[in-house]
């Protein structure tokens, strides 16, 4: 079984992915509506896992709902909330439900979210989680016991191309690939030149790079993510640009389009984080050109 995302990337096609945050509740109507609208546009939809350590419906359930709709999900799974039993158990469940893409993450610290008094787990780190996924794929769990129906996931990991010092994070990226990561989805890129350097650095690792594009909706939101979302730092000139704009949202779309177009030569795909305004992705894509320039118009 090969995921569509995997075969598209393997055949050298430029891919698009976008993340959709599952609802805080069991009513998935909106989530599904958004995903349906996106599905014609992107190759796969990332389902986030209690993003920002804020409790939401299980990404496993949300991803399974997408599969049921014929939409290809990327199931994000973090080490924050599950020990090694729960991680492997959910991965097997995901495979049984027809989920083919997994993004293995450490997870934001519990202190950022809405359950600060909870006990963070971090039984495994992201590299060890990747090893677990690889093991399951080979028919073996972390205890060395065999499992039936070994899941053949297309496995991704996160990368932060703009993180400093880069050599330090690079050691970890190498370990992630050695542990089975086949693609990287990056943190939001604000400096395409950094993405170029990053892509060059990881080229010997032979992994696909899907570059993250964040839609900044206003100067206030740009400041908020800078202060509250781990690993995200919006550069001051961009905040000033949003500040000065008569229509900040339109300016945000323009910035995202500009970054997406500038990143395109240095990656194998783009990953959109539209923070609830997934409807604006077609607009952003117009700037990218090629087969998407007609999209949404």
């Amino acid at each position: 079984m090969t995921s569509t995302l995997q075969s598209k990337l393997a055949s050298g096609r430029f891919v698009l992915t976008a993340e959709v945050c599952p609802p805080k509740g069991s009513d998935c109507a909106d989530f599904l509506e958004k995903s349906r609208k996106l599905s014609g546009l992107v190759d796969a939809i990332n389902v986030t896992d209690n993003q920002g350590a804020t409790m939401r419906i299980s990404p496993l359930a949300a991803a399974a709902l997408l599969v049921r709709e014929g939409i290809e999900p990327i199931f994000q799974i973090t080490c924050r909330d599950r020990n090694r039993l729960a991680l492997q158990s959910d991965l097997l469940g995901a495979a049984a439900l027809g989920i083919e893409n997994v993004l293995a993450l450490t997870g934001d610290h519990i202190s950022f979210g809405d359950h600060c008094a909870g006990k963070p787990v971090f039984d495994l780190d992201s590299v060890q989680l990747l090893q677990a996924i690889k093991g399951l794929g080979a028919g073996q769990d972390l205890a060395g016991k065999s499992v039936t129906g070994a899941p053949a996931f297309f496995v991704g990991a996160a990368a932060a191309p703009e993180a400093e010092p880069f050599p330090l994070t690079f050691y970890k990226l190498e370990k992630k690939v050695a542990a089975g990561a086949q693609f990287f989805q990056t943190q939001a890129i604000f400096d395409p030149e950094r993405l170029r350097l990053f892509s060059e650095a990881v080229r010997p690792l032979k992994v696909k790079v899907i570059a993250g594009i964040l839609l900044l909706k206003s100067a206030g939101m740009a400041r908020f993510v800078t202060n509250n979302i781990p690993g995200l730092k919006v550069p001051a000139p961009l905040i000033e640009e949003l500040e000065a704009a008569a229509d900040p949202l339109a300016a945000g779309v323009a910035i995202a389009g500009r970054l997406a177009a500038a990143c395109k030569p240095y990656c194998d795909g783009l990953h959109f984080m539209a923070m609830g305004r997934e409807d604006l992705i077609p607009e952003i894509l117009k700037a990218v050109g090629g087969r998407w320039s007609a999209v949404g118009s």
Partner: protein
Amino acid sequence: MIVSKQKPIDEILAALAGDGKIFLIGCAKCATVCKAGGEEEVWQMQEVLTSAGKEVTGSVVIDEACHMLRSGRDLRAKKEMVEEADALLVLACGAGIQSISAGTPKKTVAGLDTLFLGNIRRFGQFEQKCSLCGECILTETGCICPVTVCPKGLLNGPCGGMDSGHCETDPEKECVWFQIYERLQAQGTVEKLKKTVPQKDFSKMLKPGKLGIGK
């Protein structure tokens, strides 16, 4: 040493509601260094209890309250005062309190919250550097402990929240993996960061721990 701090006095008084006569116990070791349960704090607590209308039948500061035999012996030396009390208020760490309560059927109240195994930066400033994981990896990490100092206990390098060498949970603090990286670089052994550290064996720290030397 074990770092502890006194519970809010209202909480202590609420736990002692209905107990008129109290016997007070401190510890001469860690709780003294933490200024949570030494001679001085036992004395201050005596004043507080008295002004709250309680009678303090007596007090003792045990040399090491966690030492089960010694705490039993020290309480026996004050037998009458202990007997007379309605409750014992113990200003020692959780280990100390349990050595004491194991030696007496009396109602025992915990006066301290026990925090962590701490290093002493300077007087009155404590930091957690080790969480007693049972399988020390310091040799591999330039003797900086990621199990403890990284809020996520990550073993294979920094998380995606690291920002210019700072920790996602507190921009004032350096990321432990940045510290390890700098240390190993200075020692010329930064290659150690290439090694993938496998899943940790947490059975080494299964509770409750027990060790008998030479047995």
